[in-house]
């Protein structure tokens, strides 16, 4: 098997919290804590979890928009954790990001043509005429007409602006794009158009995607592998099929059972079997000891509050059917017993 395109080991990001008159450091937000995963060429890793779980921070750290506090990031086998200057700029040709709100991430005073030309100018590529041709090709590729180049971001709808954001991201033919809630703000009918566009581009360009979203159905649709995050940590990692059909971690189960399903006929049965989590996600400022999920876990036992579970490698039940087995893992002391309990029920 070939080496993964991206490999993340023990990635950690703590934000200092300052207080008092002298603004001394009084604590830290454990936004991302010891996160490891890898992404293969041309494949998609879905990153899911609730607000504050650290999924967006992971995305920004990969692009080095945020400096990691610890851990290392390897891209095509090279450690990129501490790149700077020209090397960092070169890296940004390879890894791009698309944000949730395309309007905020596009310079409102520049024409779309200018916005799309900018990556080429920054990287000193092509002559003015070549760049104009490339911009026209980009617009065509994302399904916008070539006269869009003369117009400004505010003249476009949300879906079209997201196409512009995607065009800018693919301009330098990157190998990896981080999609940070890229379709979350779009209406359903527009969302499916943009998802299709991403799938087409992925196939044509052999793009790897890290697809960060809170909509679990969308993530399932887009992903080969999925990592579930809770309070800054990955609690489960597996092929999308494994995660959605045979989840192992109690949090993954709860998350999946909370998804509204477009099937009103069976809703009463669903309601009865639904695992409704109690309470809210605790503060990442003082994450609970032991397993961070234990205060909300229906299966928690006394030692879950004191013993921290480590990510244990597990074999994918389905992986081999469709593709090379993914590096599945789960962080729960009792996942085997819990899974056995659910299996005996069904």
């Amino acid at each position, binding site marked *: 098997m070939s080496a993964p395109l991206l490999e993340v080991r023990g990635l950690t990001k703590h934000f200092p919290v300052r207080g008092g008159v002298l603004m001394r450091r009084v604590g830290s937000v454990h936004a991302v804590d010891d996160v490891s995963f890898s992404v293969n060429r041309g494949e998609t890793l879905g990153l899911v979890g609730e607000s504050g779980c650290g999924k967006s921070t992971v995305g920004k750290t990969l692009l080095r928009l945020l400096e990691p506090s610890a851990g290392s990031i390897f891209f095509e086998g090279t450690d990129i954790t501490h790149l700077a200057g020209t090397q960092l700029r070169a890296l940004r040709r390879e890894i791009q990001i698309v944000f949730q709100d395309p309007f905020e991430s596009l310079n409102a005073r520049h024409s779309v043509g200018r916005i799309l030309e900018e990556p080429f100018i920054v990287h000193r590529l092509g002559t003015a005429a070549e760049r104009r041709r490339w911009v026209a090709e980009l617009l065509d590729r994302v399904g916008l007409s070539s006269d869009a180049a003369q117009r400004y971001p505010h003249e476009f709808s949300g879906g079209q602006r997201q196409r512009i954001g995607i065009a800018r991201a693919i301009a330098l033919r990157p190998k990896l794009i981080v999609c940070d809630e890229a379709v979350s703000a779009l209406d359903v009918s527009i969302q499916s158009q943009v998802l*299709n566009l991403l799938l087409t581009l992925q196939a044509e360009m052999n793009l790897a995607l890290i697809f960060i979203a809170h909509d679990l159905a969308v993530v399932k*649709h887009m992903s080969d592998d999925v990592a579930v995050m809770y309070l800054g940590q990955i609690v489960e990692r597996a092929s999308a099929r494994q995660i959605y059909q045979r989840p192992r971690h109690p949090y993954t189960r709860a998350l999946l059972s909370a*998804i509204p*399903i*477009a099937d009103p006929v069976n*809703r009463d049965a669903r309601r009865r079997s639904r695992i409704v*989590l109690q309470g*809210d*996600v605790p503060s990442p400022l003082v994450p609970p000891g032991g397993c961070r999920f234990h205060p909300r876990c229906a299966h928690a036992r006394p030692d879950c509050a004191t013993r921290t579970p480590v990510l244990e490698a597990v074999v994918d039940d389905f992986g081999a059917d469709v593709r090379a087995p993914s590096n599945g893992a789960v962080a729960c002391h009792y996942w085997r017993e819990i899974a056995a309990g659910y299996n005996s029920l069904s």
Partner: protein
Amino acid sequence: MNDVALRVETLATEFVGDETTVRVVDGVSFDLVAGTTLGVVGESGCGKSVTALSIMGLLPRPAGRVVQGRILLNGVDLLQLPIDAMRKIRGRRISMIFQEPMTALNPVQRIGMQLMEVMRLHEDVGDAAALRRRAVELLTEVGIPAPELRLDEYPHQLSGGMRQRVLIAIALACRPDVLIADEPTTALDVTIQAQVLELIERLRQQRGMSVIFITHDLGVIAEIADQVAVMYAGRIVEMAPVEELFQRPLHPYTRGLLASMPQLQQQPKSRLPTIPGMVPSLSALPAGCRFSNRCAHATALCATEPALEQSSSDHRVACHHWKTLP
């Protein structure tokens, strides 16, 4: 015949801008059957929220105004009521909760004050101690832990889910007959959304309330609605009981919406069916059927406006071609 808690008849609402006037809601009619949940679903700009604000008499003034129709609550047309009479109805008879609980709550007032203010305004609950007891009861009813402590906290000290519960408590303080919930779970995480949906459903059952639940999410509709109205560009294009709508959608727009949702059981990475184009601007609507410029089945006939007609005893659809669609 079922009792009707609220009847909306041919409602039209306009917004006056600097240059143009746009009709955001255009001839919307529905009955909210007492004790049930009506789900109103549609994409941004379809007029679902403005319908709710029109019912509540909360349109932004002076730009927005109802220009046509009747809103009947127990036979009384709310649109004809003087302002102070309507103020008494709001909160006591009809209440509303909004998407973003932070903006709907006063950030510099304690939770308890905001809750008790509504109760004092509408009900004779007795002395301060009795009022506080009632407030604690309400917070308990909506599932807020340690309610005595929460009463003295400010909105920013609560999580999004807790704030939405507080808003629900405020909305329910005076035991309204009708609750209008406008995207109440859209800003919440999926596990918190499940909690809030369960709460609204439980309260509806326990109190015999009627609910209008507005959302863009068909999954949420499937979880909570009894009846569903699908809106597009200011009009209702289809209305049916929830199971009927999901099993036999008739309008091409409803079908398109349902098909374009990624579903858990779908083949991953397959191309999703889409609705071509985008929602037209309300100031440049196509003549006749407003969906015609995005519809694969449109013909010359669609340049005339389709009426919302009965396709069966409990199903209505506004499409010229519903009988012959594949």
